[in-house]
């Protein structure tokens, strides 16, 4: 028998051994909607607004550092203007456009007031792109429902 036939037969048989072996194992599929996929702590999905746990007030002071650090410039933040015409350290608006968000964590790192976190809730898809705007209340509500982890630069985890 020519050597190449033997070689071919052996190599093909080896391949079949692998597939048969794998066939008899348990499948690795996880049934996604029924079994939610676990996310590891620190998974980033969308920046959300953190509130003080005791007072329930947002930590945000509307300083705008996050908006400046944002590469695609999707954060709009404006502070409350008081009756005396001076800006208060309290956001009037905090809008975020998830449709262009790069999920880069730069806004969280820029925030000096511990006001932003990356939420792990990744099931935010929508049929209309306009449903991907989030305003202040929605972002604050998202923080309450989904687990979020704040990772600053150089932090030990």
């Amino acid at each position: 028998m020519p050597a190449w036939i033997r070689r071919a037969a052996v190599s093909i048989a080896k391949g079949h051994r692998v597939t048969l072996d794998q066939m008899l194992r348990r499948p690795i599929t996880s049934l996604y909607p029924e079994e939610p996929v676990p996310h590891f702590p620190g998974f980033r999905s969308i920046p959300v607004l953190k509130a003080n746990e005791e007072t329930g007030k947002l930590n945000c002071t509307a300083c705008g550092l996050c908006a400046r650090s944002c590469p695609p410039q999707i954060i709009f933040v404006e502070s409350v203007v008081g009756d005396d015409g001076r800006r208060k350290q309290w956001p009037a608006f905090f809008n975020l456009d998830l449709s262009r968000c790069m999920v880069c964590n730069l806004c969280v790192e820029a925030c000096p007031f511990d006001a932003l976190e990356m939420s792990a809730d990744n099931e935010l898809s929508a049929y209309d792109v306009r449903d991907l705007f989030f305003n202040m209340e929605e972002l604050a509500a998202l923080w309450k429902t989904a687990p979020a982890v704040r990772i600053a630069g150089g932090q030990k985890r």
Partner: protein
Amino acid sequence: MVDEEKQPKTPPKKPVVKPKVEAASGPVPLTPRQEEGLQRLKEKFPFVERDEKVRSSLGIQVPPEHVKEVLGFLRDDPFFRCRHLSCLSAVDWGEAIEVAYHLVNIEEKADEWAVTVKLPYQGDELPEVDSITDLWPGADWHEREAYDLVGVRFKGHPDLRRILLPEGFAGGHPLRKSFVDRRPPRQRLVRIR
């Protein structure tokens, strides 16, 4: 799309920490091998000069008409033997376009040389420089890209068409600083509601 006129924003005001890294200024000192190479080049081509703006390797500035000569020498000379054209790119400086070639000797010593050419604008015509596709066939797409995005005409290129932008793109060359994006601006989705 970022507006090209826009300057980088001022950095956020934070408590100023004294930077511990001193950014080097002035020309980068040369290694002995770079000195030798520069001497060797200057002997052969008296018109070459060191381009001190190239800070990552030795930059050699060449007049546009001698580019091919010098690059061919760099490729074939036993001292340089730069068989690898790593990168070919161009930058618009407002009054001139600079084309930069990055060459590496990849077979023996891994040293690198950069050749830069300044092409002054001549009216509305695209600045011209000799194509090096017959030295490195691989320069083909690099040159097409430079033509497409920066607007440099490479004389003698076999097939100088747009490569990344569509064939009939009428808006000019986007990496020029004078480029104006005429597309309707995309609606900003972040708004007050």
